[in-house]
């Protein structure tokens, strides 16, 4: 069956909007529609991706082996030290445990693994069946924690208890239990927490370097290249700088309430948002020194970068892109970043955006742009063909859609191996878009049809 023969499912129509002269409206923050082949994962996934980059913690998935198997070393997040996060631990529950309960196995597993690997903390993720068979995971965690003397923190991430976003929340709740537990932590002047960056391909290190040059200190990384001890002392920071706000704003709000730490939303993708982030932090500390250092940094970086981008722009001007990513704030940055290199966004969507996010997208985009929440392969393929796009920006699950249509693809998901944040990231991003669109392979694509002669 070919595309174009199907309309958007009735129940999903509100989640697709076209920017036109009328007032913009879109439905979002809904559970995925059964049978729609949503690109979203589940609650467990949301928790797993947020906590995964804490590199010196034990991440134990309580359930049958599948959930652990699919998330083994799944993120391109890197560590400057321990790599315990790259092992995939599962209680590997069997039928016996489904009937008689898995608490004993959980307890034995925890004791065994903690003795073997000496982690700084342990996170215990509940999967679907744990929520059904009634294991008291909290009780086991308390018992183990009192016996081994490290934080053993349950993550209530049963797959069916909401959407991926609820998984972010469950992860934030787990982090909340850890934050503030380092009582010896000292106040940190000019100290910030980097929140919602996961150090994919070492991106966080690029940002850290910028902050270091400005004289800003990093208290805790949440969670890229994260360390349990730093996170336990995160309450000593003066400011939470939150990227990927969809996943971590909940934590920032909680810290504001509990520890009186204000927060700001930033994005490190593209020149405008990256520079704005540095200026905003300087403004927060109300420091002329920081401000002038930030200006100097931006000037220097742009001096190298802009001529390169202009070069790409001359080659890419007028090309069209489809953006479909997990977080809406990133999608917004990408629209701007693409504009810098002459590429127009014709479709933009996310798995987990909220009304505010989509309103910003609508304001930012040109008339006619399709804005979509929680989309699926058929819709994405339809939109991409309708808009005659040249490139799709998304994750592994979106890649074959682009390739089957015969257009370029840029991986901007958490498996990426190429840093796309910061000024270096903007350069990489431009290069990636350029090399994907310009590949000579597209001239051969999409030519085959049954019975066709050469």
């Amino acid at each position, binding site marked *: *069956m*070919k*595309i174009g023969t*199907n309309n958007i499912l*009735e*129940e999903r129509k509100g989640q697709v909007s076209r920017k036109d002269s009328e007032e913009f409206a879109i439905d979002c923050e809904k559970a995925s529609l*059964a*049978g*729609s*082949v*949503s690109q*979203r*994962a*589940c*609650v467990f*996934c949301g928790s797993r991706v947020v906590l995964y980059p804490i590199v010196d913690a034990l991440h*134990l998935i309580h359930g*049958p*082996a*599948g*959930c*652990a198997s*699919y*998330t*083994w*070393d799944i993120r391109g997040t890197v560590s400057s030290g321990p790599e315990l996060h790259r*092992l995939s*631990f*599962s*209680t*590997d*529950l*069997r*039928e016996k445990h*489904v009937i008689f309960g898995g608490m*004993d*196995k959980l307890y034995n*597993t925890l004791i065994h693994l903690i003795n073997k690997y000496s982690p700084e903390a342990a996170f215990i993720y509940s*999967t*679907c*069946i744990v929520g*059904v*068979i009634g294991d008291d995971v909290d009780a086991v965690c308390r018992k183990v924690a009192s016996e081994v003397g490290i934080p053993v923190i349950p993550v209530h991430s049963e*797959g*069916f208890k*909401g959407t991926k976003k609820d998984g972010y929340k469950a992860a934030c709740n787990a982090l909340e239990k850890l934050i503030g537990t380092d009582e010896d932590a000292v106040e940190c002047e000019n100290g910030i927490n980097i929140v919602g960056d996961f150090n994919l391909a070492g991106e966080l290190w690029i940002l850290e370097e910028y902050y270091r040059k400005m004289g800003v200190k990093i208290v805790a990384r949440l969670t890229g290249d994260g360390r349990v001890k730093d996170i336990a002392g995160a309450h000593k920071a003066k400011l939470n700088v939150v990227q990927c706000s969809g996943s971590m704003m909940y934590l920032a709000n909680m810290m504001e309430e509990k520890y009186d730490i204000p927060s700001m939303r930033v994005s490190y993708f593209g020149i405008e948002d990256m520079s704005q982030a540095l200026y905003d932090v300087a403004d927060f500390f109300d420091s002329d020194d920081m401000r002038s250092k930030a200006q100097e940094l931006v000037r220097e970086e742009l001096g190298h970068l802009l001529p390169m981008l202009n070069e790409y722009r001359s080659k890419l001007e007028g090309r069209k892109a489809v953006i479909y990513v997990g977080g809406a704030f990133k999608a917004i940055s990408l629209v701007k970043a693409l504009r810098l290199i002459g590429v127009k966004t014709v479709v933009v969507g996310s798995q987990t955006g909220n009304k505010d996010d989509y309103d910003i997208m609508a304001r930012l985009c040109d008339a006619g742009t399709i804005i979509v929440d929680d989309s*699926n*392969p*058929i819709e994405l*393929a339809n939109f991409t063909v309708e808009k005659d796009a040249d490139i799709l920006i998304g994750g*592994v*699950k979106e890649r*074959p*859609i682009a*390739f*089957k*249509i*015969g257009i370029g693809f840029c991986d901007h998901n958490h498996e990426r191996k190429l840093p796309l944040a910061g000024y270096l990231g903007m350069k990489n991003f431009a290069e990636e878009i350029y090399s994907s669109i310009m590949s000579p392979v597209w001239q051969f694509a999409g*030519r*085959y049809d049954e019975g066709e002669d050469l």
Partner: protein
Amino acid sequence: MSYNIKNRDKVEEEKYLETPSTNACKQCAPLGASLAFRGVENCVPLIHGSQGCATYIRRYMISHFREPIDIASSSFAESSTIFGGGANFNIGIDNIIGSYSPDVIGISTSCLSETIGDDVRMLIREYQAARPGKELPFFLNASTPSYKGTHIDGFHAAVRATVERCCELRANDLPKYNNLVNIFPGLLSPADMRYLNEVFEDYNMEVMMMPDYSETLDGPTMKEYEIMPKGGTPVRKIMSASDALGTIQFGRVLGSNASMGAGEFLEDKYEVPDYKIGIPIGIRETDEFHKTMRKLSGIKLPGKYMSERSRLVDALIDGHKYTFGKRVMIYGDADMVCGLTSFACEIGLHPILCASGEESPEFEFQIKEIIARSNTPFDEGPCIISGADFESIKEVSAEMSPDLMIGNSKGYYISRPMKIPLVRCGFPIHDRVGAQRVLHVGYHGAMQLFDKMCNALIEYKQENSKVGYKYI
């Protein structure tokens, strides 16, 4: 011959089933079932459970096959877990029909829907009953709780359920075949399946292959994007399975419940003779396959294959010095490991470890039998691990000084620190292109595997020599 036998779960008898897994060497059952359903023509797989199951499994398979793999989910909410997944099931089916207009929907279950006791067969009946007179897709369903067995069990369960269902609902206007053979190839690559189809053509036999994802998971680029990729075995063809002259089932182990295979079902119920043979990897197992083909077709080995076989033997002779005595660790799905071990023994490699995440006692038995018949000169038999995880493989590998690893891409983290080559075979291959094109079966497949293994060893030798030889 001395063996070192390990079963991760039986280290201490009283702790049976109490060992956790670290870096699992298995995936869960719904993955195998969904993969099998992708080999039925115009079929959309549905996993009855939480949204994440479908999405994770899609991502895992897309990284291997590099093709669109749409799997629907009934997207359980908290209320589905309390009141049953029936309501979401119905919405899910409605929407699959609305979006894809499939001929078939292949439903597997997750651990969640199994634990709360949803009866999928009943849900299907209710769905059908509520829509009298409406033309609905053909429904297939397999019970695949992930706390029981592995992705391989899910795969075989879906194949059996499909064959059972199709035979039960057999249409009465099916074509009459007098040369039909069923083949249940197991979890092979699209290239393998394409090759097997050619073999049947060369024997002038009609084939019913279940599943056949040679086209659906290795498709061309088309003028227009296709929501449902072409290919796969039509349900009507599967309905004819009971008319076949015989069934060939690849697999010496066949999961943890080998007596429940589709071949057994057809033999027990319809008296279709069942030929259970190993996956035809290497000379001996491929010979066995062609002998079975001769039994079923009455046709002697076509000349094409005799010359393929001869060229293979010639190639093995050319390269035998590079492979002899090299210590090899083989791991992955049990039947794939059996086939690769059989081939490894034929080319003088010395298997020192054979490991699978599957837990069938049959695995150990079959590996021993393969080694015993192979006339290998080595006194030390392999360490055999069933129920393996990758950490258990890594731990034993430390004392084994292996030269080569053969298996899926997940073993890379073991081969990397040891700085030894890894030849990627089977499923999954997530760090190379061309997983769908790896040909394992037949004389031709053996030749390709041999070139890869041999060249990996040569490259290792060349890279590690001070001289930098240009001739090897």
